[in-house]
């Protein structure tokens, strides 16, 4: 009996040690936030099926130590090769300011941008800033990760708020959100992949698709 208790205690201690080790291995994701540009349209609080707005700064999001922004200055492709405003390199140039000249604007309707991370990586978080100089909601935001540049196979969808399936990628269950200077943080849960594709389908001001910055936080896969 005493032996069984001792074994149980040893297992429990082992679990605690493992959790503690894992916790020590995680660090808060550190990203530079741009200057806020609008106070914000009143957004309902505590309403079913609607993402509550952030009060103040976003709570820390933990990622494994050594996680970096893999997207910076990597190759960008898009469904629209002749953007209405700006150039594709603005998507990952590190400038998150919401002023004119900071964003690329893709044509009307369904569009995507794709980031080639150059190597397969474990992705823990994606941060996206579409536009933050006024309250806007971008429609049908879908984020996918794959090792296939054409996204025909091995596709993992990590965020999808296209609840009406307008993009024909499957109906999503994630919630709509109002863009802010803090960007949208998507938990990628360590998904493996080389390419990240972000879809949108216009916004609440016009039919165009804007990207100020996209960050892909991860570590190159072993």
């Amino acid at each position, binding site marked *: 009996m005493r032996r069984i208790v001792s074994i149980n205690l040893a297992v429990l201690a082992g679990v605690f040690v493992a959790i503690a080790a894992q916790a020590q291995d995680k660090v808060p994701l550190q990203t530079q936030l741009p200057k806020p540009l*609008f106070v914000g*349209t*009143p*957004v*309902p*609080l*505590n*309403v*079913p*099926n*609607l993402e509550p707005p952030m009060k103040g700064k976003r709570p820390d999001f933990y990622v494994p130590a050594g996680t970096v922004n893999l997207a910076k200055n990597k190759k960008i492709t898009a469904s629209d090769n002749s953007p209405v405003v700006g150039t594709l390199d603005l998507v990952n140039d590190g400038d998150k300011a919401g002023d004119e000249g900071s964003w690329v604007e893709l044509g009307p309707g369904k569009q995507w941008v794709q980031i080639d991370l150059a190597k397969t990586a474990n992705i823990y978080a994606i941060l996206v800033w579409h536009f933050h100089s*006024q*309250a*806007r*909601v971008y*429609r049908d935001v879908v984020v996918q990760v794959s090792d296939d540049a054409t996204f025909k196979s091995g596709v993992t969808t990590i965020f999808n708020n296209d*609840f*009406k399936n307008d993009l024909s990628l499957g*109906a999503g269950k994630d919630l*709509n959100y*109002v863009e802010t200077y803090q960007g949208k943080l998507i938990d990628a849960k360590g998904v493996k992949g080389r390419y990240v594709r972000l879809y949108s389908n*216009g*916004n*609440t*001001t*016009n*039919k165009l698709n804007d990207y100020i910055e996209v960050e892909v936080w991860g570590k190159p896969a072993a």
Partner: protein
Amino acid sequence: MHTDEAVNAYIVGQLLAGESFTYDPQDRHGPALAALALPLARVEGARAFSDLTESGVRLTSVLAGTITILLFGAAVEMFGFAPCLIAAGLFAIASLPVYYDRYFIHESLFGAATFGLILSACHAWGKNSVGLASLTAACAAIMLACKETAILHFLALAVAVFVFWFWNLRRRSIGWIRPRVVLTAAAAFVFLSVILFTWFGQDWKALAALLHAVPNFAMRAAGEGHQKPIGYYAQLLTNSWSGRMLCALACIGIFQIVRKRDSSTYGFLAYYFLFLAAIYSLIPYKTPWLALNFWLPISLFAALAVESLWRMSKRYLPLRAAIPAFSILAALAVVLIVHDTRQRVFVHAADETNPYAYAHTSEDLLGLPMEISELARRNSIASPRIVVIASDPWPLPWYLRHFAQVGFWQPGQPMGEADFYITSTEAAEQYKDRLHNFRPDFFGVRPGVLILLWLPAPK
């Protein structure tokens, strides 16, 4: 449709339904626009608010803008043939007048009445004509029944007349207008104003309301969210290449007039423009469509400058060189103006980067009635019940006018069951129990203003 256009269209809808116009300075301007739009809507076949169309109601403003252009034909005697032709052309193709002369707001009609007043008053003065004085009074009454700010124009006109007489005409012998003509004009102005504001004798309370309009608009002049810097109109008029070119020409024209102490109507118009520009610039409340009031003098001054430049080029260049050089410059100017007009009026008409599209309704809102129709069709709902909860629902009454069962509630008010709910972002939280099984879809009302359409949540 801009929110103000939607409100004006709703008023026309009320008149089509047999209601009379009730003047309330807190809620609306005078009845002149509605009085003109109502017969036009009937001619177009509209019998109810839901029959009205965007192009149908905007036809009223287009008609008023066309009248302004045609009035240049009656101004040839005063301003000369070539300047009138050029100014009419500028009104017809320049971006600012083309943009606002098709907005279903009061400015287009107000501008036409102002031009009519100046022309008929000048003729009445010259000819001592009772008929022309009555026409002047009619134009003044229309101005007042368009917008109460007509008072500012009357003030600017009166000061301009005095300064023009004192500075330009004092040493010349001029004929004075007879008291009988002045009295006839005053009587006609009062009579027509009463007729219009009381909606042809149906609402006598309007006269008391009109007196209250003065303190009300004095308060609004402080800004009410529309306050802008003193140089706003100058910036608006010069924020395109064609605008800068036309304003530069207008400055040349004004300089010529003031320097020469011009005793023609141009002299009077220059003072009127300067006083009006000062008044509008000093008032903190500013909206871009008010700049249309400056366009009549600006177009004439620019046209006068073009005529002077043509004369100068004839003097210093041989005619065979002057004609092609001037033609090329004129063609380039027209191309520039047309390009800017195309961009602002047609390509980016509702774009928030367009300085004329002020708090304009977002294109996105056009999708809201379509989405309701589509979902109603999919769910076999013949006549969807729509509940709108927002402290300021405009311009939704216009966009939902084709649905037979639409109700509007203020936040906090109890409302009935509905197939679709539309709430402002502030109001949604108060109805969370009712909306529990609904999923919100955001729509943009204006830049930075969102509204929520609540759809049955997917299972």
